[in-house]
């Protein structure tokens, strides 16, 4: 880290002149589009960038972003959160997880509320910290509630490897990793979404390679451009999509060439394949059951699996969001956050009714936080 100039990672990609030049190119070409370009940004990171940098404000009227299902916090069903809370409430358990997962409401409360009631819940910045915690607390059981898309799965795989190799008997995992391509298929196969182009998530693609999106291009004849998260990245990806549409093409392209290849990180993929396994089915919040859409712990490591060790106390009742909440339709690209009657009223980041309002990756949260400035 000490040799890395962090500003090199973003500075040039926020250059106002480059942004203005890209916007002009898009504006010049957009009138040639035969139909409005409705781009689904699959990833919550893109939603966040688009809102934060006001990219949506600057585009021509016939280009629109539609938020997709790509927020790992937003798509976690209540029953899985209830399970995390049940684990956290066990005696001598330290429940660890990533980021704002601790604020997501389950059926009755959130991990943050469980923490306030005495449960030992700790958000981690690095899953490997769970190993250190387990070593420092030999009389406790440390459980890592693993979440995230393909981006974070290799870290979980490494954690399994370390726990196994170190012979740790007090570190367990509850694995809830979800996969991007099955979710995109679910959105498109539904037939209602008016999406005719995709911006693919770059962080996921660094691991998986861009190749995972080719079946989407082939099945629905929609272009996919794998894009970075900076304003210049997103605008260049939009320009690439416009050019494909003008040329009547539907192809897979990589804008984020500085980190993404077609094949991805094959070493990380091998780790994931060894330590994690595809679940036959997983229930997504707002989207329902999607086959082969999530990962669990490999059956080779039952001694590390919290779902097995604590199976008797884990709640399993399937629970949907509040009826007034439109998160399901928002995740499917059928509605905007502002279409929801409870948006910004009954549902705010402090009192989220639905998952899209909880996570900073969520579409509702991004709309609430950055909003529309009325000029």
């Amino acid at each position: 880290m000490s040799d890395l100039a962090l500003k090199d990672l973003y500075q040039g990609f926020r250059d106002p002149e480059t942004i203005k030049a890209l916007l002009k190119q898009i504006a010049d070409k957009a009138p040639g589009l035969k139909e409005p370009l409705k781009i689904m940004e699959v990833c919550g990171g893109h939603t966040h960038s688009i809102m934060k940098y006001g990219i949506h404000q600057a585009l021509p009227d016939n280009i629109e972003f539609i938020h997709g299902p790509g927020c790992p916090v937003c798509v976690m069903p209540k029953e899985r959160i209830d399970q995390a809370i049940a684990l956290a409430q066990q005696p001598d358990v330290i429940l660890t997880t990533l980021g704002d997962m601790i604020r997501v409401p389950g059926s009755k409360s959130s991990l943050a509320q469980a923490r306030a009631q005495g449960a030992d819940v700790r958000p981690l910045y690095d899953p490997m910290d769970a190993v250190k915690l387990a070593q420092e607390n030999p009389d406790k059981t440390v459980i890592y509630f693993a979440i995230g898309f393909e981006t974070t799965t290799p870290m979980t795989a490494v954690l399994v490897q370390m726990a196994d190799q170190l012979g740790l008997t007090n570190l367990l995992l509850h694995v809830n990793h979800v996969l991007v391509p099955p979710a995109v298929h679910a959105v498109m196969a539904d037939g209602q979404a008016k999406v005719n182009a995709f911006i693919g998530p770059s962080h996921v693609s660094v691991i998986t390679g861009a190749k995972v999106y080719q079946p989407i291009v082939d099945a629905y004849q929609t272009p996919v451009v794998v894009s970075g998260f900076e304003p210049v990245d997103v605008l260049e990806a939009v320009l690439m999509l416009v050019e494909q549409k003008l040329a009547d093409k539907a192809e897979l392209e990589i804008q984020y060439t500085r980190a993404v290849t077609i094949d991805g990180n094959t070493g990380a993929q091998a780790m994931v394949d060894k330590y994690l396994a595809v679940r036959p089915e997983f229930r997504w919040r707002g989207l329902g059951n999607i086959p082969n859409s999530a990962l669990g712990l490999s059956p080779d490591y039952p001694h590390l699996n919290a779902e097995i060790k604590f199976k008797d106390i884990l709640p399993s009742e399937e629970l949907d969001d509040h009826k007034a909440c439109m998160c399901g339709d928002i995740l499917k690209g059928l509605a905007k956050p502002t279409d929801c009657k409870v948006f910004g009223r009954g549902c705010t980041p402090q009192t989220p009714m639905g998952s899209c309002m909880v996570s900073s990756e969520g579409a509702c949260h991004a709309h609430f936080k950055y909003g529309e400035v009325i000029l």
Partner: protein
Amino acid sequence: MTATDNKRRIQLSHGGGGVEMNQLIRKLFFKYFSNEILIRDEDAARLDIQGPLAFTTDSFTVSPRQFKGGDLGKIAVAGTVNDLAMAGAIPQYLSCGFIIEEGLTFAELETLVKSMAEELEKSGARIVCGDTKVVPKGAADGIFINTSGVGQCIANPSWKKLEVGDAILVSRDVGRHGACILASREGMALEGDLASDCATLWDDVKRLLDAGIEVRAMRDATRGGLAAVLNEWAASRELGIKVEQDQVPIADEVQGLCELFGFEPMELANEGTFVLGVPADQAEQALALLKQGQESAAIIGTVVEQHVGKVVLTSPWGSQRYLELPKGELLPRIC
């Protein structure tokens, strides 16, 4: 634990009101905070002070207690001195209450007390009374410090005085303390020299007031950072505040850390940065005076009639968004 180690740690008896507590007060606190009012050792300090007065109190806890650019002791003094300075008051007399967890080392306590004494010298304020409590192991996180302060007001800044057209300035780059604490907690070896901005601000304030700058509003941007101060001003004054995003000074190390964790630098805490509103025609002079203290000081925005109660951030490419009041605890984005 050896007998020697026991002697070198705070025990419950150090808060018991007996010999041990007496020794602690005289050998440590009186040694470093020595002044004629304190060492009179009465039940209350007798002060010679003219009104109008400003009076403030704050309790300080930070983890880790030692960080690049300061420590808990430095913050405990600078924080209260700065609260007085922001009220346009000369920082004069402070009280100091320690709540110490049994087991804290004497060496650490002495380091913190020494640091407090050094920070007091920067404004000339004095600790004139104090209190020590020792609580059983597990009842506190090492040590908590409370300081209260009183000082004579020589100006009367208030957010109520902000007017349309006023310029908004910051005294230096924002987000350093929050970023530094985050980096310390996570043990990150970052590029450059990411140190907290923790500092006493009285010199900067005095320079502005001595030069006759009409400081309309002034507030140190502690928890909640720049975003919290600006939103509070906009909401309470029923005006809007427009901020030019590229004018807000942010150190590369702070921005870089925020990129890694998904934080907003303008929401991160500061411990030595203040925000002020001045009439537009005094903005450049105020800026020049602030730059004598910190080169990164900047004019960042304007008070406007539109966007009542909101802070609007304009990007260098013309898009606009609200800068919201920070919410909840700081948690990193997941990916």
